[in-house]
């Protein structure tokens, strides 16, 4: 038995890797995510975000102040549905989740209406 503790199941990131990242000075969630790739898989952090935050607290004594930025989609969705959104274009607006960095998907009145 290899004895790994899987912190992020989706991307196969081990506890060891996260501890290594913290030892290298990555003590906030976003940096650990970029260094190890945790929370970038199927579940988008549903399983692993809290595990990582608690490891950071255990190692540094401080619970991280912020999680990773919540971005859509929260659940995996079929590409056909995404493509359907693009077909009913309305204006492009800025969303709150990204403080202006990401555009909303182009969605209009639905039911095949296009503008």
């Amino acid at each position, binding site marked *: 038995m290899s004895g790994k503790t899987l912190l992020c199941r989706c991307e196969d990131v081990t506890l060891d890797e996260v501890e290594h990242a913290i030892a290298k000075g990555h003590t906030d969630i976003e940096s650990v995510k970029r260094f190890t790739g945790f929370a970038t898989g199927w579940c988008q952090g549903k399983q692993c975000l809290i595990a990582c935050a608690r490891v950071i*607290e255990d190692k540094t004594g401080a619970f991280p102040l912020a999680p990773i930025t919540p971005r859509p989609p929260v659940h995996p969705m079929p590409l056909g549905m995404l493509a359907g959104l693009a077909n009913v274009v309305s204006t492009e607006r800025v969303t709150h989740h990204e403080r202006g960095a990401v555009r909303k998907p182009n969605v209009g009145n*639905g039911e095949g209406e296009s503008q």
Partner: protein
Amino acid sequence: MPTDHSAPGALRIARTRGTMRTSDDMTARRVDHRAVRAQHPEGVLRAVYDYAALDSAQTCGIRYDGRALDARVGEPLALSLLANGIDTLSRSVKFHRPRGPMCLRGNCEGCLTRVDDDPNTMACVARAHDGREIRSQNAFPSAELDVLRITDWFFPKSFDHHHLMVRYGPAINQVMQSFARKMAGLGTLPTRASEPMAPLAMDCDVLVVGLGPAGLALAAQCAQAGLKVVAVDEEPDVGGFLRDSLQWHTHEGARVCAPAWCDLQLAKLRALGVSVRLGAAACATFDDGTLVITGERALWVRARARVFANGSHESVGNFENNDLPGIYTERAVARALRQGVRVGATVLLTGGSDETDALALALSHTDATVHRVQPGETLRGAKGMGDVSGAVLVGPKGERTVSCDAIGAENVRTPAFELAGQAGVEPRASLTRRCFVAHSHEAGRTERRDVFVVGSVRSEGDTREPDWDATVSASVIALCKETAAQTGASR
């Protein structure tokens, strides 16, 4: 010492036809609800098995990697496979470690399979019907025996593919990249491209996301006040965590089991004219609409007020080999049992709540051997080359090994703040609960005027406060009326 709760001769375990495993491998079995109800007219066992929806379920034939198996029409495919003793469905992306169902509620990647022609289908969400064809993914020659497992042994601690070969210059880097691109990815493309599907637009006063106890109460209050309510939940049934409770609940003075209580609430919502969409997951939310996906199509819901009551995520926590097939959240074990499937013959439960006690009792009446952790003991790790074969517990008296073929690990519950976060509600760290929450003010209000958060997703658990739902719905109703007056139109 391990506790053995098994009650002799309590239950017949129904054998299924078409099983390809030997009896040694047959760890998960069907449970006969009717027999339990006949033998236990009272008490917690009756509470577990009172919900008899599956009694009338028809049998159908499905195929897994070419093998014919029996299933019950309408049950999650992951349970059909578990009932046939199959708990290893794919291999993980890098280490090719075995993967199987873990949460049984569409939150993890454990049960991803190819179903009919669709890759990466969650087998705990997809339902059984005659002729369904399931294939394991990311494994050669099979999920149970995959040759690339050597990766796991070759990198005993970790495999940092981001930084692995970058230092040896561009040539080596290119070779590694082309190798990695061939190896990476989950599943293979469907044989046909799907057509773009335009979303269905819906307008309402209030959108309620999540139909656990908080969402159910709030949707009912708003509908009673005459508002047009659309309520969605990603699960096929309402109730959230409460649905999997094994305790009795009260409805109008009568004692009912949890799923029956939930269904009564659903009937109430429908009678009030709430548009309830189940199996409908809110994916993204913006000022002018919320994107909800269902099995068939996407919905684009425009609401005057958005209420996020989408509860918590669940995981099993950090311990050695916490990803092995056969490790479930405690709630997943309860959910499987209530739907007629026992996850193992010897089950270790690490929780210590009333629900754990009820689950241990209920499992023991399926002829399963149940082990519990003793006070002060924690789960250090799971053992097993493929799926789980044992667990190591550490306590004040040292270490002990328990032999088991399934582990129901204490639920690690953390607020699902993501959607509220997209709506502009800042996620904040809760230092006492060691998690992130959707930050809210009194009565579910947030920094966004049209966004409310209720239930376990917010900073304080409001369902413990008396009349919390009336307080929150009063704010929601006031906002909707105000907005309607401004725009001069009713939805």
